[in-house]
């Protein structure tokens, strides 16, 4: 889709150094949305753009609290624990004018459950969605699912009629290289309407005058011009030179510069993402180490020693410039199951660590490769480098291999790494999500990101039970005991919770969304 002559001249001029219309917001971040089909990709930037155009039934406001979007209220059915009831907002229309009704919800959910959908894992507990009148929808789950709403916050509602008319009923099959109308066009209920889009270059949104919430939200921003800028230096330069008003990922070292620049400000908030190292304790022998016939990482004492060796304060102060919260567990604070005690960071103790190494029979240390992404998390490569130095303190000779995420993550999912960095966000705000992917033994549909080779049937059973346990107290108890085991095992080496920082022109006023998803309808311009 390309801007035509008329449009390109009428839209605010990107490169003009003087600001165009005061209520136009120039928004830049590293990556671009992958597709406009709201169900085809479950990925940050994609959702971030979709959030402006489409809406879910419920979402979390900038503070993480539930808030009705297209549903006004919801809750478990009083007479059937396996049913959730959502009452829909009335008088909502799609951008093309069609009314939003229960059939659209039924359609959207079913669509999101379909084969090619990337959202289906979030919905695997739902067996049926049925409309009860135009403005009520019932979700039937395979068992009681206490945290169902948490799985719906990124599940966007499409218009059935529109989708059918433009044969976009099926989700775009990206892997199959399919292009559908819905992957290039949008018709949501959201506050902003898509004007034009060139992937990776520029996307223009304009205010939806008929938005149901037109009087409820500030909606100061009437036009959004979204430009992905990969190169961090260039991105910051664009903000510094006033060419953009709002960038999402400011390199930590540039925060001061941005903050101290007239007309610019930086706001920060803890992000819903924890950074940690994983160790392959499962394998009998390691590929990338110099110990034959044995796996040093299988020895709990070695893992504990490594945990003690990491100087989280130094990483926080130097590498992250205080833009991080040292972590003791691999769950972000927002998550159900997180406790301050568990999350208390282990303090560095090289002596104790060396003692443990001695005990474990690795007094002379050993060598191993650390696999690390270099384009995924904040300063990921630098953190790994620091870790290399720290491991050297206890005689572990680490050889660092930093790669683009495209090459890093396969190592984890294909069991090709023994020592790796990973970051994890929890959209559901519930520990179950973490356990499913990181703790459960690797199976068909669980544990796909568990590269530690850790397996424990009891724990697995407990994890599975979580999905159907209705009694929240019991459930939380289970969660707590799983965490106990995880910590005792030193399954992972937590490093820190990332802190989000948004840089913006100071006429922009907002708070940071823990999921790094700005919702511009909340933004105030002054």
């Amino acid at each position, binding site marked *: 889709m390309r801007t035509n002559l008329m449009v390109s001249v009428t839209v605010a001029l990107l490169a003009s150094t003087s600001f165009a219309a005061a209520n136009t917001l120039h928004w830049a971040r590293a990556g671009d949305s992958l597709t406009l089909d709201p169900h085809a990709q479950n990925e940050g930037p994609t959702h971030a753009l979709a959030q402006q155009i489409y809406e879910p039934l419920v979402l979390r406001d900038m503070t993480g609290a539930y808030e009705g979007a297209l549903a006004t209220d919801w809750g478990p059915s009083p007479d059937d624990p396996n049913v959730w009831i959502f009452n829909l907002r009335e008088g909502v229309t799609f951008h093309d004018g069609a009314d939003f009704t229960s059939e659209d919800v039924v359609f959207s959910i079913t669509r999101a459950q379909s084969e090619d959908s990337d959202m289906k894992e979030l919905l695997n507990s739902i067996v049926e969605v049925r409309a009860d009148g135009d403005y009520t929808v019932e979700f039937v789950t395979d068992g009681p699912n206490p945290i169902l709403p948490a799985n719906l916050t990124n599940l966007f509602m499409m218009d059935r009629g529109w989708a059918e008319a433009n044969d976009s009923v099926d989700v775009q099959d990206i892997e199959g290289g399919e292009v559908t109308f819905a992957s290039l066009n949008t018709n949501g209920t959201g506050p902003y309407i898509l004007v034009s889009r060139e992937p990776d270059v520029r996307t223009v949104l304009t205010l939806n005058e008929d938005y149901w919430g037109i009087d409820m939200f500030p909606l100061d921003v009437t036009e959004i011009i979204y430009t992905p800028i990969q190169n961090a230096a260039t991105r910051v330069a664009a903000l510094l030179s006033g060419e953009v008003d709002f960038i999402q990922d400011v390199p930590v070292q540039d925060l001061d510069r941005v903050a101290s620049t007239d007309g610019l400000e930086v706001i920060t908030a803890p992000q819903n993402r924890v950074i940690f190292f994983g160790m392959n304790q499962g394998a009998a022998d390691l590929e990338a180490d110099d110990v034959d016939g044995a796996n040093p990482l299988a020895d709990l004492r070695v893992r504990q020693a490594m945990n003690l060796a990491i100087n989280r304060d130094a990483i926080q102060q130097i590498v992250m410039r205080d833009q991080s919260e040292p972590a003791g567990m691999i769950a972000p604070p927002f998550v159900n199951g997180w406790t301050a005690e568990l999350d208390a960071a282990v303090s560095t103790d090289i002596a104790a660590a060396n003692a443990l190494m001695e005990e474990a029979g690795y007094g002379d240390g050993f060598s191993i490769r650390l696999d690390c992404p270099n384009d995924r998390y904040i300063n990921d490569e630098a953190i790994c480098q620091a870790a290399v130095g720290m491991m050297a303190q206890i005689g572990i000779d680490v050889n660092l291999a930093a790669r683009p995420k495209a*090459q890093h993550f396969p190592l984890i999912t294909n069991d090709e790494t023994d020592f790796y960095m990973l970051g994890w966000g929890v959209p559901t705000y519930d520990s179950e999500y973490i356990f499913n992917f990181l703790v459960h033994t690797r199976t068909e549909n669980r544990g796909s990101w568990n590269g530690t080779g850790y397996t424990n049937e009891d724990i697995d059973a407990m994890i599975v039970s979580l999905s159907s346990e209705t009694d929240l107290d019991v459930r939380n108890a289970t969660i707590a005991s799983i965490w106990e085991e995880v910590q005792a095992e030193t399954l992972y080496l937590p490093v820190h919770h990332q802190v989000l920082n948004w840089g913006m022109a100071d006429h922009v006023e907002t708070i940071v969304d823990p999921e790094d998803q700005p919702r511009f309808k909340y933004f105030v311009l002054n």
Partner: protein
Amino acid sequence: MIYSILKRAVQSVFVLLLVGLVAFSMFRFVGDPVDNLLGQERTEADIERVRQELGLNDPFVVQYWDFLSNAARGDMGVSFRQGRPAMEVILERVPATLELALVSATFAMTLGILLGIYTAIHRKSWISNAILAISLIGVSLPTFLIGIFLIYIFAVELGWLPSFGRGDVVDFGWWSTGLLTWTGLKSLILPAFTLGLYQLTLIMRLVRSEMSEVLKQDYIRFARARGLSERAINFRHAVKNTLIPVVTVAGLQIGSIIAFAIITETVFQWPGIGLLFINSIQFVDIPIMASYLMLISVMFVVINFAVDLLYLAIDPRLRDGKGA
């Protein structure tokens, strides 16, 4: 004449085939597209399914054959990343890169030739030596660094020029140009300069040495003995003879400019095929990468071809088959 042209054509096909092989085989190794296509929540089953769909499980040869036969039909497959025909995606970006390449090539050529002539005529003057020495700085710093410095100075500190992007473009059919808008022009300056600097130095040095050679020729001495003014000798006789060999090299330079745009475009977020290529590498978007390489080599071959013809056109000695 016809023979040499045909010969060229055949060779070009050979070149393209080879590039095709490389282009394809190259990226069968870089990363695994599957991991980018599937999000955090994905199961082993998904991975298998996707690999099947992408035909990633077929033997290499099969995949290459499919690739070739499709490429022949201009079908380079569909971008994993954007879910649109790779060729479409690339062609959409071509104008940006070509515009950048042409502007910087023109810049490099004109300035390079002028300075080259000057330094050749005034071999010994300190100005020429200064020019030569300074010009070397242009090739002694990596392009990306120069780019970043320029951004820092002209965009951040002085705020004169935009730091990224292409400004506003005006569309004519599938072609879009930034040459018609003020912001478009301003956006061109820094990238074009960054990109052209290296070529500028090369061409300048080439012209200098070629012209110094020419100035040693008998016909120049003879022209002098006939009482022609230095102007006439330098600009009517020497320059023309100098430019003939320069044309070839310059032609090839345009080819490499397009290729080197990768770096410049990354630094300036210039929405051309270079940037697209780098993106596609990050996302292991094989169809894009492959078609990029094919496109580059096609351009290269075409340029080569054009240069040969141009050569025939400007050098009378080659025109009637002699020494061709």
